[in-house]
């Protein structure tokens, strides 16, 4: 009977730790990423996902004219640097942080409203000594200037 409880405990611990990542991602986005938007006001939309080295994700959003925006991209400390690229709806590249020393934030304004694609990519870690892939939360938060 003792063995049964040992197995149950191990499986319960596995389930607990395997699902804890979701809550951690939310906490990470709130505590680590939202402050990077200051003095801009966060729009309240939570865009975060777990990514591994070499994985990428895209976020689609319409940005409006004559409104100042800030995009903040934050990656878990266990991840290599995050590259982000801003493209128009036809996938023409408008900005990449690879040209700006992988900056985490970007401030911009649009003359006319349009949908942009924010592509984020966790760079592969070429210098690592093991064959394991780092995995962690990446958040994309958007802020705007509420006082204009």
């Amino acid at each position, binding site marked *: 009977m003792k063995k*049964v409880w040992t197995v149950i405990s191990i499986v319960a611990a596995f389930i607990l730790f395997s699902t804890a990542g979701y809550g951690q991602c939310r906490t990470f986005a709130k505590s680590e990423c939202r402050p990077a938007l200051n003095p801009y006001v966060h729009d309240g939309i939570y865009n975060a996902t777990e990514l591994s080295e070499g994985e990428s994700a895209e976020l689609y959003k*319409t940005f409006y004219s004559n409104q100042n925006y800030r995009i903040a991209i934050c990656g878990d400390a266990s991840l290599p640097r995050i590259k982000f690229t801003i493209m128009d709806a036809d996938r023409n590249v408008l900005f990449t942080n690879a040209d700006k020393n992988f900056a985490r934030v970007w401030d911009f304004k649009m003359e006319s409203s349009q949908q942009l694609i924010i592509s984020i990519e966790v760079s592969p870690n070429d210098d690592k000594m093991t064959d394991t892939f780092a995995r962690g939360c990446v958040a994309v938060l958007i802020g705007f200037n509420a006082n204009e």
Partner: protein
Amino acid sequence: MSMREKLFKVVRYIALFGVITAFVSCNSESKNDSTDKEKELKAKVVQDVKKVMISLPSPVETSILLKKAGASYNEALLNPTSNASKYNTDKQKALNLGVYGADLSYASIFGQDQTIMQYMNISKKLAIGLDLLTAIDQSIIDRLEANHDNRDSVIRIISETFMNSNSSLKDDNRPETAALILAGGWIEGLYLATSLVDKIEKKDLIERIVEQKMSLGELKQLLETYKSNKDISDVLEAIQPIIKAFESIEIQKSDKVEVVTNLETKQTEMKQKQKINITQKQYDELKSAVAKLRNSIIQ
């Protein structure tokens, strides 16, 4: 049954439970963890398998854009808080939590203290009804009361409640409910905007309204992601008249986006000209379609 057989039986049940739990925990954008052997293969194909996130304009952002474009405040347009007791299903609660969120944002941008508190309290009730216990807790209400005369703080607190709601739902593997709330908020924002404008001569507001054609594409894309859910497919069908009304309204863009960065402020401006072509008839049809859908949601 021997002790050994009992042990295997328990392990089988636990394994089955583990498989089911792992399956339901995966949302639409997550991928299965892989074994060490699979990792190499996964690394090769992962570049082609991108996760997609859709971000609709938040009600706070929409309200600020409307005020800048010259919108006025009209309390009579809001969904009365007395309607909340009629919402019994999760679909009604989620859509109207979005509606009340948009009303709350609209009131906050125009500094309507009493209305802000009423709509935050009614949002809290609907959130609890959706098991979103921590999205709007008493500390949020207390902070709102303490900062009611500081518009910037009020907007930040409201933004925080939206973040709490949609992050809780996504992390709890309830993205369909999050999508319904966002849809309700988007529809109410468009309803408020179109209700404030009768004639297309009000160019700034009309421009903001027509620009929602772009975010409508994102709303459609978001709903289509979860259309296997009946509540979502119902909403997807219900927005068809709005999609149709927008189809005939044209937004023309100049060919290329010019990117100009101010080296001192480090702010970038993306320059591209836009022209909107809309007739009064097209606008009236859009306004009517929006009002019809919104009124069916708040009933």
